[in-house]
């Protein structure tokens, strides 16, 4: 039944692979970097943390060059439709590499991480591995490839989460993450299998073709959809698939938390968008399409739930990391709003929002790390009076939080602006979602403001006056992140334009 392939076929296969490899250079390069790091870890001795870290940063920066080169290449599906090279993917490649770099930067700062006796070892290698995985999540066009990419991200993430072996909370987080992740990906896989069964295809564009041509059994389809959504929702940390995130974010080493809450979330969204925009067939009238509407209602519910739940529950948090975890759930909701509109401006909005989120979220976590290095605590009450002691950190954190709320003149505001523009651009169809978004953002101001409130308005019990000295490097980084957040809040044209340019999947632009 399965005939051995003939020589000609093998030739063609090899040529396809060789052709594909040309489109695959950044990933290959990063895989090489991954190896190098592991070997470095083995050969180097003593205090090698800084060397490894800087090596990673340099390597990742290098990858930017290769990604940049891909602009010259035409959009193409490679490896038998397993993988795609398009503007959309390239955008996320940049995104993830930058995300990785920032994660490494935070890791260098974090004393808890660097001080543990077992050393950082393969830590940075795993970070790179995650970058690769996320890139592939953003670019893969085949169910199989998607699943593999997700697992690659997931597995490295589990390990990173549990990296502080001595810290009970870290390992608890790892366990929860693992179990939860494994089950979710299992569901996703089961959903994939059903889709495969319905369409006999694993390539998403072919799937959509099948669905449009031959129709499908709605019952099975909705089941599959739900299962897939469960898998993706878990990656995006959206209600009701978010449960893992608060615990994991709290327990994991802060750099990893930052990395997960930004990177793997973004990867989840990239994947969702690809499936949603490509696999789900669109009738001419767009969102009113019957097929679309199932997905839409599901996603609208998820979005609304995430915005409300994330913001409301965050009010109660006393641990800053946990608070940011809940806020990240809320942000997943806002991001979904951009996808729901299923048009260019929506996609563009999501990309801009993600870019902003990268800056402000990582920035916030960075300051949290800097502070916890000094105070050894991530507890809200221990932030009292810090504004006096660490003015720069305080100011920066305030800016990041304001940006997370979405007030001008910050990057976060631009994200919100474009998201809501996308919604209202659809007329009154999604107005209720916009209203929920607006109202919840008021609530969000409330709990975000606790942090500045504690830092500036309240005095610490042990009234130790005088500034706490923070390292030159960390000051510079904080300042740069803060200034960028503000700068792009006023002059967002370049990024927004690039996002618009990137909002095309395999050359297909929604409208």
């Amino acid at each position, binding site marked *: 039944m399965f005939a051995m392939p003939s020589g000609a076929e093998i030739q063609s296969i090899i040529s396809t692979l060789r052709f594909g490899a040309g489109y695959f250079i950044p990933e290959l390069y990063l895989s090489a970097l991954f190896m190098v790091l592991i070997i470095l870890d083995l050969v180097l001795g003593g205090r090698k943390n800084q060397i490894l870290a800087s090596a990673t940063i340099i390597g990742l920066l290098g990858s930017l060059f290769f990604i940049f080169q891909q602009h010259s290449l035409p959009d193409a599906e490679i490896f038998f439709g397993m993988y795609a090279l398009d503007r959309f993917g390239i955008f996320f490649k940049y995104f993830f590499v930058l995300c990785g770099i920032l994660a490494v930067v935070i890791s260098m700062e974090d004393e808890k991480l660097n001080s543990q006796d077992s050393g950082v070892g393969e830590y940075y290698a795993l970070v790179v591995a995650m970058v690769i995985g996320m890139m592939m999540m953003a670019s893969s066009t085949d169910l199989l490839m998607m699943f593999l990419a997700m697992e690659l991200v997931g597995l490295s993430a589990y390990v990173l989460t549990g990296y502080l072996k001595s810290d009970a909370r870290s390992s608890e987080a790892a366990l929860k993450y693992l179990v939860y992740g494994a089950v979710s990906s299992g569901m996703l896989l089961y959903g994939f299998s059903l889709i495969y069964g319905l369409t006999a295809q694993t390539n998403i564009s072919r799937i959509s073709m099948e669905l449009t041509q031959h129709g499908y059994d709605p019952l099975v389809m909705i089941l599959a959809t739900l299962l897939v959504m469960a898998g993706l929702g878990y990656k995006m940390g959206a209600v009701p698939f978010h449960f893992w995130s608060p615990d994991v974010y709290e327990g994991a080493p802060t750099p990893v938390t930052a990395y997960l809450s930004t990177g793997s979330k973004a990867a989840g969204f990239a994947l969702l968008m690809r499936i949603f925009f490509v696999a789900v067939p669109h009738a001419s009238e767009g969102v009113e399409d019957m097929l679309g509407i199932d997905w839409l209602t599901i996603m609208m519910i998820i979005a609304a739930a995430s915005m409300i739940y994330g913001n409301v529950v965050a009010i109660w948090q006393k641990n800053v990391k946990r608070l940011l975890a809940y806020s990240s759930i809320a942000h997943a909701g806002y991001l979904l709003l951009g996808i729901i509109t299923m*048009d260019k401006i929506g996609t563009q909005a999501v990309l801009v929002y993600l870019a902003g989120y990268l800056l402000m979220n990582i920035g916030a976590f960075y300051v949290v790390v800097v502070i916890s290095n000094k105070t050894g605590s991530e507890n809200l009450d221990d932030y009292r009076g810090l504004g006096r002691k660490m003015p720069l950190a305080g100011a920066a954190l305030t800016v990041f939080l304001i940006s997370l709320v979405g007030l001008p003149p910050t990057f976060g505001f631009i994200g919100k602006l474009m998201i809501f523009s996308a919604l209202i651009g659809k007329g009154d169809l999604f107005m209720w979602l916009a209203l929920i978004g607006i109202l919840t953002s008021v609530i969000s101001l409330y709990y975000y403001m606790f942090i500045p409130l504690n830092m500036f308005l309240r005095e610490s019990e042990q009234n130790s006056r005088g500034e706490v000295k923070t390292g030159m490097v960390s000051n510079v980084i904080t300042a740069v992140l803060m200034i960028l957040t503000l700068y792009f809040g006023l002059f967002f044209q370049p990024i927004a334009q690039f996002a618009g340019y990137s909002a095309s999947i395999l050359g297909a632009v929604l409208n």
Partner: protein
Amino acid sequence: MLSLIVFLPIIAGLIILAVPASQKQIIRIVSLLAAVAQGVLAVLIWRQYDPTMAGIVAAPGGSPVGSFQLIERIPWISLNLGSFGPMTIEYFIGVDGLSITMVILTALISIIGVLSSWPIQKQVKGYFILFNLLSTAMMGCFVALDFFLFYVFWEVMLLPMYFLIGIWGGPNREYAAIKFFLYTLFGSVFMLLVMIGLYFSVIDPVTGNHTFSLVAMADQHNYVAGSILGPGSVMWRYAAFIVLFVGFAIKVPMFPFHTWLPDAHVEAPTPISVILAGVLLKLGTYGMMRINFPLFPEVYQAGLYVIGIFGAINIIYGAFCALAQQDLKKMVAYSSISHMGYVLLGMAAGNSEGMLGALYQMFNHGTITAMLFLLVGVIYDRAHSRQIDKFGGLASYMPVYAGLVTVAWFASLGLPGLSGFISEAFVFVGAFTAPVTRPIAMVSVLGIVFGAAYLLWSLQRMFLGKRKPDALYEVETDGHGHEHIHFHDWNGKLDLDARELTMLIPLAIIVIVLGIYPMPIMGMLTASINKLVTVLAPVAAAAVH
């Protein structure tokens, strides 16, 4: 030039950033210089302002040039939004009758604010940085002619205010600051939605693109049929109007959204109270005049009665609440609520007299209430208390202070010959002339009496009569048999010192001069007001449908 007046404080702020925190005097002086420079610019602008140009809407042909003045229009953001065409945001500022007086007022109040900030010792550097940021934001709001720009300035105002109240405020400052922040933000977030909605509904006749330009939005012909806020979409237009109105009403503040104000004032340090009452409140009513009404004239026409009723409630309710206050500053705060009610009432009249009265009242309330809060600050410095009943007979011991208090108090209760009277008078004239608001006006005049009641009563309790047994000061008799009083732990000059006089005297002069001959300010308003009234007129409103 306009940009300069807007961004001078920010520049000062950046300079201060470079100054070491220990150099308090330098920091103060830098801010003062910036404020004074602002003032000078304001005067220049005032001199070269041409009162015959109306503003409000674009000149015939759709270009603001020839209608607005000192226009600066630079393309800022231009994006391609696929099916929505290019999204263009402009740095677009200019002045017309509505804004020019507010610009002058803001400059004036900023100088006063810096001067009255002199005694502040805690974290001077941070204070003045925030202060300058705030004053830039305020000025920006008044000159912005692009909704996006306006919104940015509007929101930027919140944070400095939050910290200025929250860090330098009184014992209960956290509560007041949070309350202020949440109220005002709650008001403004919806503005974002409306702004976007308007963007998609309005086409700039010149470029043919969607635009954020308020000038284009003010002309009903630029609205796209079938768009969400376009002609015919009645429900959404009403919704948008209400949302905007509430947003601005919270700033005004209008009953029942006013409760943040007394707390904010009571906790805020004197200069911040001055800024808050002097300028920030005006932003609410200014926003209504500039954005809320011209963009939705037909809804405005439909809502006149409601606005008027809220105005009346503010006037009388505020006066009654003031009557009951024991804390002098709280009383003044409620008096602000009452006086802003006149502005609402005047705007509800919908005719030139009323609108003019309202706009002029905005200016006068700015100066008068600044005086009030400064004077309250003075006594608070001396006695560290504002309990009205803890004083008594001060007039004998602090004659100059008492004299200025009398001027301010009577200005506030609308005594002829002082500026407050004229604006209130014309608010009533307008409101009574308009049949819609006539009954409301007839009720609101009661505010005149109650206004006089609480002011005179407080005046009597604090300054007249004899020293109360439980007063906060002792009376000492010197060799010549002259009585002097001494406040506990106050060793400064008992009566007003030079700095306080330099703040108060100019204000007093302005109040008196504008009370006798208002044309210097009023003259700049009339053209714009008449234009505004024509834009809002029912016929124009009817054109929407």
